[in-house]
Structure formats: structure tokens, C-alpha cells
């Protein structure tokens, strides 16, 4: 998604001189499509994420559309109050691009795991939160949101190869995207871990369990109508997110179920508990937190079994 982001942004910047790119000294072998083409519109502010958001606020007030880039924890958590009091309070078109949602920086350790970025950003009213599931969707999402009047947060993956089958790069702000339709249970997946949810649905189909799989990329504005309509049709829904179970996709689904008085049972597949001092690859960490395709299948089967007894 990083390359899709940088390439698409460079193409947009060619047409619109308001677009600038700031980085907190990250993006080696990722941002060059932009930085080499527009060296005077590219600023490495150094390791200074709070200042980066403050500068972007000042730039946006003057009519620019500044994109700021860093690893998602550094892009969201360190300058969080600057985001709150800057682009959110001033309603300015600053774009925060956080790369490496979930366990994409698995081996880098807990400081680099983006497990609450969507949750904290979703708290801010008027801030659009976009979490694409693959690079093709990242491109479409950027093309359809770069010019929004208010601020936007993009939660990007590092992976520019994986594709969520059936998604075909679709994105609509405020909507879900369905990639599979079935009758037994509903999956709602956010971010690049959606490939695991899609694979779990495949595996379940072999055992005669048919799933609907929805991709939640427009986290805010939330696809409230789509979620309500879908959740109303299923007795069981599972949210899948490489994120704490609080604040992200699971919380959003729970809010809809509760506020609309729906009868759907919800299982939130995500990260629970305190950070563990255990490193590993993204796949390893997904498995450890019940987010691998096999563990998702096991969770679904267990829940269906309980539901039938």
C-alpha cells in the first residue's frame, strides 16, 4: 500500500499544486515516487511528529493540502493532541498517513505495532478514517478522499502485493464492500488482515459453512446503514482486525448492534490484553492473537457449534 500511496499521491500532485508531503524521517524506498518528482514540495521534518502536524496545520490554513507520513504509531499517538487541536479543531484538510497498521512491523516489536491507531483516530469527530485492505483499494480510497474538506487519517499497510480476492479495488466513503455472500455467518474485516478473513471464509466453505465477508475500509464516516442492514440478517458476526478489540471494527459493530437493537451475536477477533514481550513475523503474531485464517476458522466453528446447541 505504501507504493500505491506514494505513486497515486505523486500523480495527484501533478494535477494539484496544493498537495505537499511531509515525513517524520521515514519512508525509505517508499516515498521516492513523490520526493524525486517534487523535491520542493517534500519536507523531511526530522524525528519531530508533533511539529510535523503543527506545520501541516499552518500549511492547510493557508490553502495547501499537506500529507504527513510516518509509521502509524508515531503518526497518530505521539502528535495526537496536535491532531486534535490542529486539523480537527480547525477543520482543515491535513492528511495523516500512518503506515504499518497492526503487526506489519512484527519483528520491530511492540513500539511499532499499530494496535490502537484506528480507535484513537475514530474518537475525533470530523476526522475521516480510512483503513484500506489492499493496495488496489488504497489507491481508490486515496483518489476518492484526497480532496475532502476536513482532515483524513489513512491507515496503510506496507504490503504492495497481497490482494483481497473479490475486492477489485472498490472503495466508497461511508460504505462497506462485500467480497463474498453467504448465509451462515458474517465477517467484517478491517485492514490488510482482511486477507485472513477471506481465506477463513474459503476454508469454512469447504466444510459447508457459507459466509458473507464485508470489508470495512471507511471506518469514519462509518458505513452505518450498510452495517445495520447486514448485521440484521445474521445471527452471528465476527469482526477481524489487527487492532485492539476496543475502539476499532469490533467496537463499531457493537455500537450498531446495540443502538439499533439487533439480535446478532458479535465476536470481536482482535488483540486483547497487555503487550507481550514476544516478537515475530506478522503471520506469527496474527496466529498468536487468533487472527490467522486457521484460528479464525476455529473461532467461527466454535461459535456456530455453541449457537446450534
Amino acid at each position, binding site marked *: 500500500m505504501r507504493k500505491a500511496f506514494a505513486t497515486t499521491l505523486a500523480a495527484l500532485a501533478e494535477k494539484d499544486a496544493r498537495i505537499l508531503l511531509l515525513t517524520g524521517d521515514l519512508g525509505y524506498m517508499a516515498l521516492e515516487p513523490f520526493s524525486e518528482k517534487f523535491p520542493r514540495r517534500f519536507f523531511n521534518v526530522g524525528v519531530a511528529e508533533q511539529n510535523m502536524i503543527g506545520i501541516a496545520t*499552518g500549511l492547510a490554513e*493557508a490553502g495547501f493540502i499537506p500529507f504527513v507520513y510516518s509509521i502509524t504509531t508515531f503518526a497518530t499517538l505521539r502528535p495526537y493532541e496536535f491532531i486534535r487541536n490542529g486539523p480537527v479543531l480547525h477543520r482543515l484538510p491535513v492528511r495523516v498517513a500512518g503506515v504499518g497498521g497492526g503487526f506489519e512491523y512484527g519483528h520491530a516489536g511492540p513500539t511499532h505495532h499499530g494496535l490502537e491507531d484506528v480507535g484513537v483516530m475514530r474518537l475525533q469527530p470530523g476526522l475521516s478514517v480510512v483503513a484500506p485492505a489492499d493496495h488496489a483499494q488504497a489507491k481508490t480510497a486515496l483518489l476518492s478522499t484526497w480532496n475532502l474538506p476536513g482532515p483524513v487519517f489513512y491507515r496503510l499497510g506496507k504490503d504492495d502485493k497481497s490482494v483481497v480476492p473479490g475486492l477489485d479495488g472498490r472503495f466508497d466513503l461511508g460504505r462497506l464492500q462485500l467480497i463474498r455472500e453467504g448465509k451462515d455467518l458474517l465477517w467484517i474485516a478491517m485492514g490488510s488482515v482482511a486477507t485472513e478473513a477471506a481465506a477463513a471464509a474459503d476454508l469454512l466453505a469447504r466444510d459447508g459453512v457459507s459466509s458473507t465477508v464485508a470489508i470495512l475500509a471507511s471506518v469514519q464516516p462509518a458505513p452505518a446503514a450498510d452495517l445495520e442492514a447486514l448485521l440484521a440478517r445474521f445471527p452471528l458476526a465476527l469482526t477481524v482486525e489487527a487492532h485492539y478489540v476496543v475502539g476499532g471494527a469490533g467496537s463499531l459493530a457493537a455500537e450498531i448492534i446495540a443502538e439499533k437493537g439487533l439480535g446478532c451475536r458479535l465476536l470481536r477477533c482482535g488483540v486483547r490484553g497487555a503487550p507481550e514481550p514476544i516478537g515475530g513475523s506478522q503471520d506469527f503474531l496474527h496466529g498468536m492473537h487468533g487472527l490467522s485464517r486457521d484460528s479464525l476458522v476455529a473461532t467461527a466453528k466454535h461459535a456456530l457449534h455453541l449457537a446450534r446447541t
Partner: protein
Amino acid sequence: MSESRVAARRIREIILHQSKRANVGHIGSALSVADLLAVLYTDVLRIADPRDPERDRFILSKGHASLALYAALSLRGWISRQVLDSFCQDGSILGVHPDRAVPGVDFSTGSLGQGLSMGVGAALAARLADRPHRVFVLVSDAECNTGVLWEAVMFAAHHRLSNLIVIVDSNGQQALGYTKDVLDIAPLAERWRAFGWDTQDIDGHDTEGIARAIEAISKGPGAPHVLVARTVFGKGVSYMEGQIKWHYWPMSDEEYARALAEVESRP
């Protein structure tokens, strides 16, 4: 009496009147910057209209001195007497910290340490858009406690944002004590200079001197500029000057009468 000195007296009167009417504090912090704001809003800031994209920008990074800013904006006619009298009332746009909903307020402030970064962005924007306007940011000395202020200081120096002018209200006080006791930041001017800024040490109550210092700032390319303004917290009201309690304390009726009499008798 010069226009800026008249304005300074009016600003002090408004600070006292409005803080008394609303029964709020931050009086000493506002009085500390009254002369600086008087000069800025009478002699310095080029603002034909507060919505003009080419206007000079002003950011009161020490947002708790908002009453001094509201007073200056009312003297310019951008906020009416009626709006001014709504200060701290339910539903008013004039709170203890300035919001950009107020005509003439470019950026909302109140969280210390955030104003300079936004000012750096505004100055960078002016350069990128090839516009002639300048950006003024008024910070407190206690704001220099924040790490992010120095991030902004470094960026501005590195990019030689010569259209950026910072004024430090160096009154030596912060909420709970004197800066030298809380977190000593002396020697302030030397520190800014060491970070690559064009630095002047000035008297922050000498209106003519403030105007001269700003006039002396080079118009050409080069380093960003800072005026380290030596000020007295609570300046103009003898019993508030240098007193920590007047960071938060509101005035009694008797204190108000005494303060107003002192301000009105000041030459």
C-alpha cells in the same frame, strides 16, 4: 502620547474590566503582553481584513492571555463591544483561550507549545505561495519548557524562515512558580541564538523600543527572528507585579478599583 501607548492603556483597562465582569483570572499574564500587543496591532501587523489571505498572521501561543488579544481586536474594530462583553458567558465565542471563530484569530490556542509549529507552517506556506506576508507568534517563556517548541525552532532555522518573527514574553513566571525555580530556562536569548535565530533582547514594555526592534528586523532572506521581551508579570498593577497568585486569581471589588486607578494614572 503615541498611538501604541494609548492602545496599551485601553488594552489594560479592558483586561481589568472584562476579567472583573467575568470573575476570572489570568490577569497578570494578559497585562504582561499588553504593550507588545498594542504595538503589534497599532504599528506592525498588516491586516487590511482578517480574512485576507495575504494578511500578516498573528498567533497568541500563550492563549491564556486571550483578554489582551480580544482587547486589541476590539480596538481594531473586528469584534464589537457587545461581543467583547460576552467574554466567558454561556454561548460566547470569547473564552479564556482564543478560538479561530473569533474574527482576527488565525489559530486556536490554549495548549501550550502548539502555536509555534502552526506559525512555522504558516510561514512556510507564505514562502511556498510566494506571498509577502509575515507570521508573528507570541510565546511565553514557560512554553519554552515544551520539547516541541524546540522542534519548531530547529525547523524554522534549518529552512531559514525569515518571514517568521517570534516574541517571547519573558516575565519569568509560570503557573506555580518562577521559571528559575520550576525549570530554569536561562539564558533564554542565548539559547535561541544557539539554535540559529536572529535574536534581540528587548524591553517588552517600551512601546517605542518594541516598534523600533521590529522595524530593525531585516527584510531579506536569512534566519528567523526572535525578540526576547523582558516583561513584568502583571505590569501596570503594582500589587500584581511579580506575584504568582495573579496567574489564577480574580479581583475583588476593591482590588479592581485600585488596579483601574493605577492603570488610568499611568503615563
